[in-house]
Structures are given as structure tokens and as C-alpha cells.
């Protein structure tokens, strides 16, 4: 059990279903996903492109496209927010519940100075004066370790490097002291060196701000650096959820184990073939019979091809959806 388990979860998602109405018929992007994020916990979400990992949180934030329909329940801080009107959501989004994305350039307004964009958040959400908001903006840039914060406030987004822009976005997401920050592939567009720095910033602000965090990535190497618990998604479903240490050291689902092998590392001897997953992830639209991973799974049997494995608890805090989990 994690040390935060006793308190009420900051985010509680139950039986979330996201369906897109497309010309070819409905497409289920998220299928029956349930998860919780405890206060101050960092939950890592891992999956390939199209696994639905981002869609879960776009639904929670009320940011789904118009042709998408979400059902189930999303409770934030004890309150149902799924299907809330935009006006009511806007009181939460950007202040108590914030999200940062892969590409910080497209999240920032190109023609406004960094300082104005940061200060505006506090003027809008907290009724700050511009002068106080600017001071807070400067302070927040220091917290995310942006060098020369005073000068940065006067710069435009294009004058900053990708890493600096992502720091600004993290700073912006922290301005109203959120209870939960959702970081969707925050380092995927960055160099490994800058990625390591941004992970360091996220680690530090999470401890300072005493907030919960969701870290979404296709790269287990990135998620491992920060997450207390990791949830693995495949074809719209949760296939494994465990405390980070257990999942990384003793993965239960064959998919998790293969994902782990795929992270290019320098620790093991160089192999003739670079490890990878054969084939490709099922598109969200494919209606599978049985386990969606069966076509790529080395352990698949007839049962896997005909019967959908339910997500079941192995131990107190580990869950896996597999007919043939790896150990125990």
C-alpha cells in the first residue's frame, strides 16, 4: 500500500468509455478504464500511440473533440466533472487541474510576451492585479529554474528553446497551485539532456507543491524516473497497474515486459538486433475478440484469442489483465 492510500483520491475515474462517431462507424478509443490518483501521488500512464492514454485525460479535462462521447465517471477532488458545462469546468481547468502537452510551442500564444501569458492566469483565475501577477510570474520562472527570469518575462515564445518553453508551461500550470498536474508526453519532443533536466524540474516541483501528477508517455524509461505507480494501456484498456518498482522489476503482463525490453539502454551488452515489439498496436477502432494483444504476444493461446481477459487483482495493489501473467 502506498502511504497516501488512506486519504481521498484527488482523481477517481470509473468505467470511463470514450467513443468517436466516425464515418466508418463508432470507434471505441477508451474502454472501461478505471483509475485513481491519490493526493501527492505520481501516476505514470504508459502505452503506444493509439492506446487511448491521452484520450482518458482529454475526457477528464472536457477537451474531447465534438464527435466524441464519454461515459462513466470522473471525480476530481470528490466532485463529478465528466460532462460538466464548459463554464463550470473553466473554474477548475487551468487552476486546480492543469495539463501540459508535448509541444509547448503550440500551447503558448505566439504574439504575447511570456510574462503577460503567465500573469494572465492569475488575473483571470485569482483576481490578482497585473503588478502582483507579474511578480508571481517571475517567482514561478525561478521555481522551474529558468535562468534570467526577468528577461524571459519580456521575451516571446519563439525566442525560447524547446526546453525553456516547456519550463514556462510547467510554471504556468503551477501558478494557481493545482491539486493535480497532467503531463502528456512533456519531454517527447526534447533532446535526452533537456529531457533529463525537465524530469528533474517535474520531480522538484512535485515535492515542493505537494500536488498529484499524472505522467503520460510511450517511454517506460521516462515514466520510471518519476512515477509511484504505473498503469499500462493497450488498445483502449488498462492491461496492468502496479507500484512502479514492482512493475519495472517484475512485470506481469507480457506487453509490459516487452515494452521494458524495448527501451534502448546502455547498461546491457549491445545486441545484434535492437529489441522491439513485432507488428503494430491495434488501432483504437479494431473490435477485438479475446485479448487485443494476442496477435503480438509470445504467450498467446487459444483462450487469449477467444476470451477477453478481465483486469484482476493479483495482490493488494497490483492488477493485470492477462490469462497467462508472467510470474506468481
Amino acid at each position: 500500500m502506498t502511504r497516501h492510500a488512506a486519504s481521498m483520491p484527488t482523481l477517481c475515474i470509473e468505467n470511463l468509455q470514450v467513443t468517436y462517431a466516425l464515418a466508418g462507424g463508432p470507434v471505441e478509443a477508451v474502454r472501461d478504464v478505471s483509475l485513481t490518483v491519490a493526493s501527492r501521488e505520481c501516476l505514470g500512464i504508459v502505452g503506444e500511440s493509439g492506446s487511448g492514454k491521452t484520450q482518458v485525460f482529454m475526457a477528464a479535462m472536457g477537451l474531447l473533440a465534438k464527435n466524441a462521447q464519454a461515459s462513466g465517471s470522473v471525480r476530481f477532488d470528490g466532485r463529478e466533472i465528466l460532462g460538466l458545462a464548459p463554464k463550470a469546468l473553466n473554474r477548475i481547468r487551468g487552476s486546480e487541474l492543469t495539463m501540459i502537452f508535448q509541444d509547448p510551442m503550440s500551447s503558448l500564444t505566439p504574439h504575447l510576451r511570456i510574462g503577460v501569458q503567465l500573469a494572465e492566469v492569475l488575473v483571470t483565475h485569482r483576481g490578482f492585479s497585473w503588478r502582483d501577477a507579474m511578480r508571481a510570474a517571475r517567482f514561478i520562472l525561478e521555481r522551474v529554474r529558468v535562468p534570467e527570469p526577468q528577461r524571459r518575462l519580456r521575451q516571446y515564445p519563439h525566442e525560447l528553446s524547446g526546453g525553456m518553453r516547456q519550463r514556462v508551461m510547467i510554471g504556468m500550470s503551477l501558478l494557481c497551485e493545482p491539486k493535480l498536474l497532467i503531463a502528456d508526453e512533456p519531454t517527447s519532443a526534447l533532446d535526452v539532456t533537456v529531457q533529463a533536466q525537465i524530469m528533474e524540474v517535474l520531480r522538484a516541483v512535485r515535492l515542493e507543491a505537494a500536488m498529484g501528477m499524472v505522467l503520460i508517455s510511450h517511454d517506460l524509461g521516462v515514466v520510471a524516473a518519476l512515477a509511484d505507480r504505473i498503469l499500462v494501456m493497450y488498445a483502449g484498456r488498462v492491461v496492468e497497474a502496479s507500484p512502479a518498482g514492482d512493475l519495472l522489476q517484475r512485470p506481469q503482463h507480457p506487453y509490459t515486459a516487452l515494452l521494458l525490453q524495448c527501451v534502448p539502454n546502455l547498461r546491457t551488452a549491445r545486441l545484434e538486433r535492437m529489441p522491439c515489439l513485432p507488428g503494430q498496436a491495434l488501432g483504437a477502432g479494431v473490435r477485438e475478440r479475446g485479448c487485443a494483444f494476442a496477435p503480438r504476444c509470445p504467450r498467446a493461446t487459444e483462450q487469449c484469442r477467444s476470451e477477453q481477459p478481465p483486469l484482476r487483482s493479483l495482490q493488494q495493489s497490483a492488477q493485470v489483465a492477462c490469462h497467462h501473467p508472467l510470474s506468481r
Partner: protein
Amino acid sequence: MPPPAVPVSDPLLEVRNLSVNFGAFAALAQVSFGVGAGETVGLVGESGSGKSTLARALLRLIPAARGSIVWGGMDLLSCDAATLRRQRRDLQMIFQDPLASLDPRMTVGEALAEPLGIFEPGLSAQARRSRIEQMLERVGLAHGTADRYPHEFSGGQCQRIGIARAMMLRPKLLVCDEPVSSLDVSIQGQIVNLLMDLQQEFGTAMLFISHNLAVVRHISHRVLVIYLGRIVEHAARDALFAAPAHPYTRALLAAVPDPTRVPAGGAIVAEENMVAAGEPPPGNAVPSGCAFRNRCRYAEGICEREIPQLEPVSAQHAVACHRWRVIAPYP
């Protein structure tokens, strides 16, 4: 003129003292290296280090200020446009964003037919079609791919299409500019393995550009590490990974994420002082002497005064660092 720091016998491509300027900013300064036939040279560095500039300068997509690119007995930098066009057949490139490098209104078959139309105009429609089908099959794409459009494919499949197009003319050199950086880690290996297989089969030499040394280790025979337009380390693969000599190379190595370095407490202990602080400075603020010195924990007086030149560490290993002999042993 100094020879390349790590000599290649019988090079297919030899770059000598290549410099590229963007206004007053030296994007590449005195870059020299060779690529042997059928060999893969990895090129590693951060954004802004000059990796893509080098790739583009090699294909003369951007002009060089000085130096030479010796290819097939001629200098690509001084040859006329018609000669250059003929050489392009043997010099192909693939890009980071495979979808953006394909024309959305062309079917995959049309995209692959283009190079054949230019360089082998005499080919019958049927022969062209069969060459395209063969290549698509070779890169692992399903039958019928030729009649579909790029947006119907995943990122990994689009990169296979990009590779198929580049390989249509059986080039002697394939320049790969971050070909797996935008792909899921789970399929990066598919593309790297495919490139290695194609090299085996066709003997294609490759320049493989990446910011991730773990990926470069898989595919490269030799590695160049570049920082702010200069090669700072140049070595045979095993020599480099066994004993990286430049502090910048070590920082790049330390930054590679590793999910197994997780202690019981959850979060990993960052090797903070190994991951170089800050970022490369903008072009107008490159420090004097060694460009890396303001991020380097080993820097001292001489690093401020003199630009370090590549010097041999061993026969297959050269480094441009004043302090490489005295810094801590690796790891």
C-alpha cells in the same frame, strides 16, 4: 590540411574542413570525417548542435562556406548542377517526420515511382510497378500499400515508406536524420533493425543522426559527437562506449533514461552533476575557447582561451578536450 581524426581506408565520402555559416553564426566549423562503403557512422548531439545542418550540407541542400566533400573522385561542393543531380541518385535521405516528408496527395506508389521516373525514365510501367512492389515488400509493408495514401499509415509505417522511397535507386549513401525520434520506443527497434538489414543486403553506407546514444550504439560502426558545430569526439563504436573521453559525451550518456535504475523509494537518483546543466547557448553567445566550457564541470583557464583541437586517444579514438587526460575515469 589536417586529415580526419579517425582515418577510414578507401572512404566513399570524405568531408574535409567543412564550414557552414548562417550570417555571423558558424553552424559548422572545420568538420572532417570519412564514411567507408557499407559503413554506418552515427552522428550525435543536441538540438542546435549542427547535426541536421551537416546532413543538409552533405547533400548540398544548403551552401557551405568552406571545405570540400569528396565523393566518387570529385568535390560535390564545386561540381556543376547537372553533375550534382546525377550524384543525388546515390545520395538519399530520410527524415524525422516521415508523414511530413511524403506528399499527402500522392499515393505511396506514386511517391516511390518519382525517383524511378527521374533516373530510369526508360522503365516500362509494368517494370516500375514490380520494382515498387518488391521494395514495399522488402521494407515490410503489406500488399496493396502502393495504392493507399500516407495518412492511412502509422508513424512507423510512414518511416518504412520513406525508407522504401530512399532505397528505390539503391543509393550508396543514406543520410538518416533522426529517423526514429518521433516513433514510439516499442517500434524504434523495428526501423533500426530494418536499416541494418538493408545495409547488409545492399551494402548501403549510412550517416545516422540521433540525440540518443543508446540508439546510435545499436546501428553505428563509428560515432561522431558534435557540439555547437564542432566534432568533439570521434571514435569506433566500442572504443567510444567503453571509454567516452569528452565530458559532453558523458553527459549525453548519463541522460539516456533507464527504467531499471529505480531504487525502492520510487524515483531514481539523478546523476545530476553528470547531466550537463543548461542548454547549448544561442548562436550569438557561444563562449570563447571550448564552446562547452560553460556547461562543463571540468573547465579551467585554458578552456576559456583556446579552442581544443581533435587529438588522438587511441588509433580509433579522438577527442577535442583540453582536460581529457585528467578528468575522472569512466564510469
